[in-house]
Structure formats: C-alpha cells, structure tokens
C-alpha cells in the first residue's frame, strides 16, 4: 500500500501544477464593432488548422483569450492537420463543432453534403473589409456560407547554403542530385499535385488514367525522397536536415525567420492556390456566438495579429493596406500581377475518383 501513497503524492504535486497561475496579459484593442455580453457563459467550439491563429506565444496577441474576455463566451479551441481529418471528425458524429475553417475543395464537399449553415453577412459589420477578389469564389458564388480567412499558394523552399543554383521546377524533387535531401507532402492531394503539374494535368481530372500516371511518377520519385512530411517540415528545413521541400508560402516566411538561408520560388509549371474560409456547421450549438466570433476575426487588429503570426496572405483589406503590417507588400504573399504564377484551385472530385486516388496513395507508399 506504500506505493499507493506514493502515487497520491505525485497526484497532488501534479495537480498543484495544474492550478497554479497563468501569465498572459491582455492587449488594448481598437475594435470597429460592438460586442454584446448576452451570450456570457456559453461555449463556442472552434475547429481550425494547427498553428493557424495567434495564440499568445512570444508575447503576441492571444485571439481566443481576447474574445473570451470581451464576450464572456468560452472558446473550446481544437486543431486538425488536414482537411480530410477534419472531415472525418465532423462527419462521424462523435464530436460537435460550431466553427470550422476548411479549404475550398473541402467546403465544396461539405456544401454538397449539406453540412454547412448559412451565414448572413449583413449581420457581420466587418464583412466590408474582405477584398472583392475573394468574394463570389467558385465554391461559394453568392457569399452565403463562407467568410475567407487566409489565402495561400504552394511553392518550393530550398536551403541556399547547400543548393546554389536551382531550376524553378517541380522536377527538382525528382532530381538525383538532391537524393535524400528532398521532402514531399504527406497528404495525397498535395503530393499528387506536384506530379500532376509536371505532367501538365488538370488537378481535378476525372480521368483515372491521369491519376495512374501521376502515381507512377510519384513512385519513381520515392527513392529520391528523404521522407513524406507535413508540419514536421519546419524542423527539418530550419536545421538543415533536409534541403528542398514543397510547402505553403506562408509557412516558408515563418521558417525563414529562423533560418535566413532558406529561399523560395513558385515553380514555372504552375501551382495550387487555396482559400481557407470560416464556416458554421449546420448542427452548431451556438450559432450566434459563432457569428460574433467571425466578426471578431475580421477586426483589423485581430486579423493583422493573425496574419503576422500565421504568415499567410490575408483577404482582409485592413491588413493588406496597413503599412505597419509586418508582411506589407511582401512579394511572395502578394505577388504583383506580372509575377503571379499560373494557378489552379482544387475542386471537390466525385466520390469514385476521390476514393480512387485516396487508395492509389497507399499503392505509392507500398511500392
């Protein structure tokens, strides 16, 4: 029984850790909109990408805490790492979410499956800040269901201290010169994109043989790769463990802060552009709080903090036109018209083709 008392001691020590104080200081915010406290005490569940909100680390603004302080609504904040994981969680009915922030093609799929609630943008006093070019997009032509959160494009990051001269093409991932130095995406849609671009295919091809050819190309390139990774790419590129990786432009900017040797380009074959937008689920438990939260995310101060923390391009004019914004006029995030790469959006593909490429991905891995 002595062991039991030992465990009781551990328990007490650890619990005292749990309940000791917290040290985040609230910021002084200039807000455009009014926020009522009539929903005080309710909970709002937000399901977002990992590292996709300013969270108070490194002395930056903690968006969720500020919202809680302002409205008295408790934010239950959870993260996912791919559109597919998010979909799986939302769909299986095991858990409930109010707000989700998926990408374009996944929003299209959720709309087809009638899982999203309408958002009345006239109730969002900050909606006028959204740049016109991100309104009426293909997955939400009448701006009924989504509010844009971030915009991004995929490019290639390389370490200029190891690689001096590099061809601006997706082919570098297949180049034997860079054997064991290159990484690729560990998710089928993005990994297939790198091959589809080389082959000049439509990213949303309904033709199985296109996907077969892309899979063959991926298999061919596999021995050249060090690994397939997602966010682990940060550590690998920052430390020089790997030297070339395709990833999202915004993440490159964050990595370059740590390792200035890292350089970036958009491949000449073209690339994928995406919009991640805020949506409210049909079975949301706290719809009004969700609207309030979305309006809060659009606040200039909040949107700027998020844009600076995340490093992705913002669709919010209050951010883009703000000269004090850290990435103001950044050429990678906001390329001038003449430098804009050829881009394609992902669209939702019909069930058959989707499950075809999702299974092909296993073939690539098992090859």
């Amino acid at each position: 029984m002595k062991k039991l008392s030992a465990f009781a001691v551990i328990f007490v020590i650890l619990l005292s850790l749990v309940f000791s104080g917290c040290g985040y200081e609230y910021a002084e915010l200039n807000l455009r909109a009014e926020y009522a406290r009539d929903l005080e005490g309710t909970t709002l569940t937000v399901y977002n990408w990992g590292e996709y909100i300013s969270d108070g680390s490194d002395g930056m603004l903690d968006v969720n805490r500020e919202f809680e302080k302002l409205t008295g609504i408790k934010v239950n904040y959870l993260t996912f790492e791919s559109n597919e994981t998010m979909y799986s969680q939302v769909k299986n009915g095991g858990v409930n979410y109010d707000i989700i922030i998926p990408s374009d093609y996944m929003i299209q799929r959720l709309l087809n499956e009638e899982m999203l609630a309408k958002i009345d943008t006239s109730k969002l006093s900050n909606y006028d800040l959204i740049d016109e070019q991100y309104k009426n997009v293909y997955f939400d032509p009448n701006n009924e269901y989504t509010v844009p959160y971030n915009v991004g494009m995929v490019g290639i990051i390389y370490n200029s201290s190891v690689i001096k001269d590099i061809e601006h093409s997706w082919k570098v991932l297949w180049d034997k010169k860079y054997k064991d130095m290159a990484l690729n995406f560990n998710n089928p849609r993005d990994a297939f994109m790198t091959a589809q671009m080389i082959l000049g295919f439509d990213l949303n091809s309904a033709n199985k043989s296109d996907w077969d050819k892309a899979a063959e190309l991926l298999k061919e390139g596999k021995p050249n790769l060090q690994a397939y990774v997602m966010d682990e790419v940060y550590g690998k590129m920052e430390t020089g463990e790997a030297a070339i990786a395709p990833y999202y432009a915004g993440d490159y900017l964050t990595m370059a802060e740590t390792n200035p040797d890292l350089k970036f380009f958009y491949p000449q074959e073209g690339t994928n552009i995406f919009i991640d937008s805020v949506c409210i689920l049909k079975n949301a438990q706290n719809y009004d709080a969700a609207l309030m939260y979305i309006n809060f995310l659009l606040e200039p101060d909040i949107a700027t903090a998020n844009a600076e923390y995340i490093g992705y391009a913002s669709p919010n004019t209050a951010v883009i036109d703000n000269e004090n914004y850290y990435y103001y006029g950044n050429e990678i995030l906001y390329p001038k018209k003449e430098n804009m790469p050829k881009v394609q959006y992902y669209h939702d593909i019909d069930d058959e083709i989707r499950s075809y490429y999702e299974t092909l991905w296993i073939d690539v891995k098992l090859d």
Partner: protein
Amino acid sequence: MKNKSFGSRLIAAPYIVWSVIFIVVPLIIMFYFALTNESGVFTLANLASIGKYKKAFGISVLYAAISTLITLLLAYPMAYFMTKLKVSSQRMLMMIVMIPMWMNFLIRTYSWITLLANTGIINTFLGKLGLGPYKLMYTPGAVILGMVYDFIPYMILPIYSVLSKLDKSLLEAAEDLGSNGFTKFKRVILPLSKPGIISGVTMVFVPSVSTFYISQKLGGNKTMLIGDVIEYFFNLGPTYYNVASAISLVLMVMILICLFVMNRFSDDDDGGVII
C-alpha cells in the same frame, strides 16, 4: 451455503455485464461493419479488397518478427544476468528497467529522431571522428530500432520473473549429474523459462505488428504498416469505416493465429487461454 456462494458469484455480475457490452458487442459491431457496405447491405467486397494490402501485412509481420527476435536476444541475457545479482540490486535494476515505461511512449520514440537524424547527435559525434554522416533515420532499421526500444521492458520483465523463481536445487542436480554450463542452460534453464519467453514474445509482437506511430516518425512515412493503413482510412472519414473494420478484423485473426501457434509451444495452461 448455496445462498452464500450464489452471493459471491453475483459480485462478478457487474464485470460480466461490462465485458459483454464493452468487449463482445464492439467486436460484433466491427464484424457487422466489415461485412456490410456504407449503406448497411451485406457484402464481401471489403474482405476481398484486403488482398491489395497484403504487402502492408507482410511488412508488418516481418518487421514485428525481426524486432521481437532482436528484443528476445537482447532481453534474455539481461534478465539472466539480473538474477545473478544480490536481491536488493535485482530489485533496483527492475525499477531501472521499468522507469522508462512511465515516460510517454510518443516522446520516447520522438527522442530517437534527435539521436538518429543526419544532423543528430550520433552523426555529429561520428563527424567529429571524421566519419559519416550515415543515413540512420527513415530506414527500416530505424523503425525496427524504435520497436525494440519501446517494447524491450515487456520482454525483460516476464523472463526475469520466471528465471528468478527457478528452483536452485534443479540446477544443482543438473550439475551433480555432470552437465556443463551449456547443456545445463539448454536442458534445464531454457525449457523452464519458456512461459516467460512466450509471454514476452506476445507482449512485444502484438504492439509491434499493429503500431502506426513508430513507422510514421522513424520511417518518414515512406512505407505503410498495417496500422498505418487502418489509421489512414480512419482519418478519411466514415466512408472508409467498413474497409478499416475489415482490415482490423483480419489483423485480429492474424494475431490470434500467431498467438495460437506460439501457445502450442507452451504446455502452461494456467489461467484460461483463449485458444
């Protein structure tokens, strides 16, 4: 007397109800999923599609078998030497072997990346000696190393507990009858430690064959073990629950067969073995 024993049987009732609802019923539901399609119609298509993943099954069994063998070869001498020590040091060593098991296994696995990476500790050290860098990470070897490392305490402990209970007089008898060290080991010690070996092998093989974390972190996602395939499908959404259930079912049957084969080697049927 009858009533009293009825009473003591009755106190098992909560457990029996519990085990039916939370052990038996979930397996039945999994069976149901494996044998139906998304809209609940009976089909054998899920089970038929498993042929596509035979390579994943193959690699999983191969990696798990190799790592179980290595674990056994490393753990047996360790357990044996432990029994030769003073009783107090034995207990201390037991603790020392067990303590890493209290660390979160994800962290234990992840720390290996710091050791094995191209810019990691081992390669940096070798670099100072003018060697390398060697490619240690993202190889089958790294995955097997991860399995051996994560599960070796589960092999040491049962073997040690059997060896430490060996009847000393048996060993003396063997010596009296003229056995030398090796024959004594082969004829007496090894057969007697079989139950420990079997439970150790089980406890290492089962988690190794079904893991999905170790292969992802130390294998760099370049191949898929069967656990990875199940996890991949699970994360794609409910459409795939049927296939995922079918693969899980086959995995379960496969493990049971392996355990069955292993149990044939043991005559020990203490405590009700399933098979």
